[in-house]
């Protein structure tokens, strides 16, 4: 079985970050994906990845969205389900 994928939503807790998390969570639930979905508000994680503009979406340690709220179809595309 392939290792479980990990999706992180990074942001210091402002409304845009919460909205991003909702969008990702919605897609994960709707598609019934087996992923680990985490919301991380720590500066350390953001800096470790070099993310400067929040909100950010990280899949398996790679920043795929930064500085804006992604649309559901974009999240699907990034997860390879479009």
């Amino acid at each position: 079985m392939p290792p479980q994928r990990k999706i992180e939503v990074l942001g210091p807790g402002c409304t845009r970050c919460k909205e991003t998390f909702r969008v990702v969570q919605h897609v994960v639930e709707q598609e019934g994906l087996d992923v680990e979905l985490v919301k991380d508000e720590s500066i350390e994680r953001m800096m470790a990845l070099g993310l400067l503009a929040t909100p950010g979406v990280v899949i398996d340690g790679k920043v795929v969205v930064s500085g804006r709220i992604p649309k559901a179809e974009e999240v699907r595309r990034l997860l390879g389900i479009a």
Partner: protein
Amino acid sequence: MTTLASTATIALRPTRRRGWALTAVAFGTAVLFYTQLQRLAAFLTYDLAGLARGSRLSSAVEFFVFEVPKVLLLLTAVVFAVGVLRSFFTPERARQLLAGRREASGNVLAAIFGIATPFCSCSAVPLFIGFVTAGIPLGVTFSFLISAPMVNEVALVLLFGLFGWRVAALYLGTGLAIAIVAGWVIGRLKLERHVEPWVWQVQSGSGTTAAQKTWTDRLTDGRAAIREIVGKVWLYVVIGIAVGAGIHGYVPTNFMASFMGRDAWWAVPLAVLLGVPMYSNAAGIIPVVQALLGKGAALGTVLAFMMSVIALSLPEMIILRKVLRPALIATFVAVVAAGILAVGYLFNAVM
């Protein structure tokens, strides 16, 4: 106009040609509508509603009916254009380009990037840390942090739409000047020890480069920007214009001149002081600013007030407290306030 375009794009698959065609149609319709606005406003106020010419009510109503669609149209067009432009810039890119730059040239570049880069107050902290840990001088980082929120396309559009290109250009120029000089001054003051110590310990990655975007992506970014910015701001614009319309129709001309006129030397500092605890987006403030100006308030005083409201934002100061010690925050506020004061006096003297 925007809803029509959005509904259409949901129904159709976003092929490249359709994207361009829709944009062109929307643009053409907007231009046509824009040129007929004055006539339409007059028609609606005097012919349709039957209001008497020259009365206060009709004056206010015509102002409102004319300005609301005009400003919203302009705003939509520019937000779209800037949204597309910004798809070329990210803070990560700005950071790469600024790393290792010296002062002076770094200050200028940082201020310019600040305009082009999208900025949200919540990004202030990670942005600050990312910049200083990449070796970007403190002063240069501040130039970026000052220009990013202050010189934004919403403010520029509204200024252009309501006062003409000269005022908009002056705001852009002086905003940049303040960002560059204030950042440079803060750099000279060598305040590095007032940054919270833990910031220097942070290990930061270099950041990934974004995947290559196609033009269809960029147009989508533009449309997303419209939904996000105009969608958030339009009500403030309408309310602001309504207040402006009320002032336009009902406050006697030159009422403001007595205490906001250029002869009252204390007007500029007062305006700056008033602006510090207030925080508003540009959209809400500018229509009010217009009415104040129309009633005799001096341009410098009013612009100083506007800059102070936008640039010296209390929420952002609170957020930055995480990474900056109070002494540095105080210095930052003082230097920027001084710059705004200077601009206010300059405008009053020159205009």
